[in-house]
């Protein structure tokens, strides 16, 4: 019944409006929660999917759009929100997840950057915070988490695309998520959605050292990649961030993992590179559909292996 076109890219306002519509259409399942404000004072909204029960049920965090130019990740997230409400009580696997756990979905983790990509520079990746003493704007919000902050794979130069920021959590967008997750205290899974080059990765990015749960995470990720590929054969490469793509310190999933959220994964969604970050709109729904199969596989494993 929605008039929202899930096969197109949208403004921040349109995405927020659609989040509101989903929450209004399914008030017993979904609520829109504000977790903070961006540097330029835009609200940061998450959708909370919950079937009730005790206050702080075990929970899953789905994070999208931290790098603003990766538009198919925000688009996939908003499609995923509608998929969850559509399939609840129809898809037994999803229903079983929601009977036991809550899902929190943040479709636009970097609202200022997202708006900037639509008004000034489509290729913008970072936040829009000002850097005193530099003409260059913004910090890479996926180098700003408190996980080997300012280590390998980051830059101290504010003009760099991987500038880590003045200190961990300096970006209010990152701090808002960190505080929300810490105050909640019962997150079991954190998935970050990026785009470019079809990868499914797990900690660590800041070291080549194996994560203590690497074997299980590898197994979960391989199963998820297989589920994802079952739709249209999109092949994902699976492995730890550091050796699969490149060393990257201060990333969201490393922070999550080091703070007790065992099931921490990063997706790099479908993109051959021939379109850059401009995945054609005709590929949004196919990307979201296949990603959903991967996500669902991970979430089902988490549900069955609560700790």
């Amino acid at each position, binding site marked *: 019944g929605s008039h929202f*076109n899930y096969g*197109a890219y949208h403004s921040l306002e349109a995405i927020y409006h659609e989040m509101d519509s989903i929450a209004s259409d399914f008030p017993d399942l979904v609520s829109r929660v504000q977790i903070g404000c961006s540097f330029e004072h835009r609200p940061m909204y998450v959708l909370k999917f919950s079937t009730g029960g005790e206050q702080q049920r075990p929970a899953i965090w789905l994070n999208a759009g931290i790098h603003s130019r990766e538009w198919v990740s925000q688009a996939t997230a908003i499609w995923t929100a509608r998929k969850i409400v559509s399939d609840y009580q129809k898809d037994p696997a999803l229903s079983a997840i929601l009977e036991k756990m809550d899902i929190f979905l943040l479709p636009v983790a970097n609202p200022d950057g997202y708006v900037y990509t639509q008004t000034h*520079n489509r290729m913008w990746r970072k936040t829009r915070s000002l850097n005193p003493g530099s003409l260059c704007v913004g910090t890479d919000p996926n180098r700003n988490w408190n996980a080997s902050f300012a280590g390998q794979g980051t830059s101290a*130069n504010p003009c760099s695309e991987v500038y880590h920021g003045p200190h961990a959590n300096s970006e209010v967008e990152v701090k808002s998520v960190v505080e929300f997750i810490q105050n909640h205290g019962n997150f079991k899974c954190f998935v970050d959605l990026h785009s470019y*080059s079809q990868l499914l990765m797990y900690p660590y990015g800041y070291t080549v050292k194996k994560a203590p749960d690497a074997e299980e995470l590898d197994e979960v990720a391989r199963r998820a990649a297989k589920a994802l590929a079952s739709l249209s054969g999109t092949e994902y490469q699976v492995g730890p961030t550091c*050796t699969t*793509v490149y060393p990257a310190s201060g990333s969201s999933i490393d922070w999550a993992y080091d703070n007790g959220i065992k099931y921490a994964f990063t997706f790099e969604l479908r993109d051959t590179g021939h379109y*850059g970050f401009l995945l*054609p709109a005709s590929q949004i729904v196919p990307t979201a559909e296949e990603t959903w199969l991967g996500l669902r596989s991970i979430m089902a494993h988490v549900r069955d292996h609560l700790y």
Partner: protein
Amino acid sequence: REKFLGDQVFRINVRNGDEISKLSWLVNSDNFKLDVWRSPSTFGRPVDVLVPSVSLQPVRSFLASQGFEYSVTIEDLQALLDDEDEEMQHNEGQERN
């Protein structure tokens, strides 16, 4: 709006550690204003770099002088952006209908 007229994306093959070091130097140099879409990491994984039109000549010369294999995956970024813009406007129109 910032324009990307004539900017290209290069896909560069990396065959050994020496090439990773040389490429790391290139992409970290402030002179060329490169935007790395896929960083040099391990062998066998190509590196994708957005090269602004003003840097095309020096970057091509560097790659040739060092014997790198590369191809151009995006010939003109602005053309892609224009297509996307058109597509978005078309979708907005459809929504109104």
